[in-house]
């Protein structure tokens, strides 16, 4: 496909450039700037659309998957750490209990963070806080 189109495209542009010269280049340049401007004007809309797609997926299905996987991941990692601490230190139920609770807290933090209600990693709360607390 690409190979067939190649010679045609380059063959056509050569002679035309010779005939029309600089005017055509200026015209192209102007058109390209116009196109760039109109694309830039559309860009914020496109970004918003992407954000929605990322947050919502199709209906609430994507959102549900996202939030539940965040929460479960926190709890699972907490349990895994607790189990390993118990295994290494021999403090049988306590590591599991403590880290299950920590994992629960981390899961809630993950959910709030992915829902955009808490500032991200290492960021100060003042930036995102007041607007999102409502």
């Amino acid at each position, binding site marked *: *496909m*690409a*190979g067939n*189109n*190649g010679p045609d*495209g*380059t063959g056509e*542009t050569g002679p035309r450039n010779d005939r029309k010269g600089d005017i055509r280049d200026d015209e192209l340049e102007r058109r390209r700037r116009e196109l760039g401007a109109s694309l830039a004007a559309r860009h914020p809309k496109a*970004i918003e659309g992407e954000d929605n*797609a*990322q947050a919502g*997926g*199709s209906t609430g299905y*994507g959102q549900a*998957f*996202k939030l539940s*996987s*965040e929460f*479960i*991941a*926190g709890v*699972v*990692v*907490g349990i895994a*750490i607790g189990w390993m601490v118990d295994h290494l230190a021999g403090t049988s139920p306590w590591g599991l209990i403590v*880290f299950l609770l*920590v*994992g629960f*807290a*981390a*899961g809630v*933090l*993950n959910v709030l*963070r992915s829902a955009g209600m808490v*500032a*991200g*990693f*290492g*960021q*100060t*709360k*003042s930036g995102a806080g007041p607007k999102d607390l409502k």
Partner: protein
Amino acid sequence: MAAADKVDPIHQFHINKIVPIEIGGYDLSFTNSSLFMVVTVLVASAFLYLATSGRHLVPTRWQSSAELTYEFIANMLKDSAGTQGMRFFPFVFSLFMFILVANLLGLFPYFFTVTSHIIVTFALSVLVIGVVLVYGLAKHGFGFFKLFAPSGVPAILIPLVAIIEVVSFLSRPVSLSVRLFANMLAGHITLKVFAGFIVSLSALGGVGVAGAVLPLIMTVAITGLEVLVACLQAYVFAILTCMYLNDALHPGH
């Protein structure tokens, strides 16, 4: 296929050995999963190589689709990790193309879906977190750990908050891999179950065949949805990778 009315929706996820290899007690066989990973890499490379081999100033359709994917990922990376993030472009782009092509290939009947196995997606996400950790520690040294101590927290609470933040950080690869794997697994099982309804209903005779139209419509609709999910999950994986890389580049902000 022994019993036509009993369709096993899980059968498609079976791993079969194609070339059994065993080295030092470890099973390193070349399986159908490995085969489709190789196919995925080949398809992705072939697509990009053939599409860009022309190098036209006015791109052809194939070249323009390749350029679209490039600009899509490049803009995503620049938006979320800044221009410094562009050094990770090959990494993010390879991840995105691998997952996208693997997801889309899995939609073909009789094809194996690589990303429907959690160990594959977990390996990918551990790779991401590994890059974040290694690069963050190499660039910022000890300062990278500021990531776990948010500013503005009372000094007494710092140890507790830091532990929670560390667990939250460690849960990222898990949630990243679980999300991709669960979406692909659930989608393929749903597809198989509805397709199975068609077979079992049409075995009932005239009324059954008429009724089988409903699950057929569902199957077509879900296939469309699955194409969307396949692209969306590749996108989500890539954008989360960008956000995690942002943490490695600018911890503490």
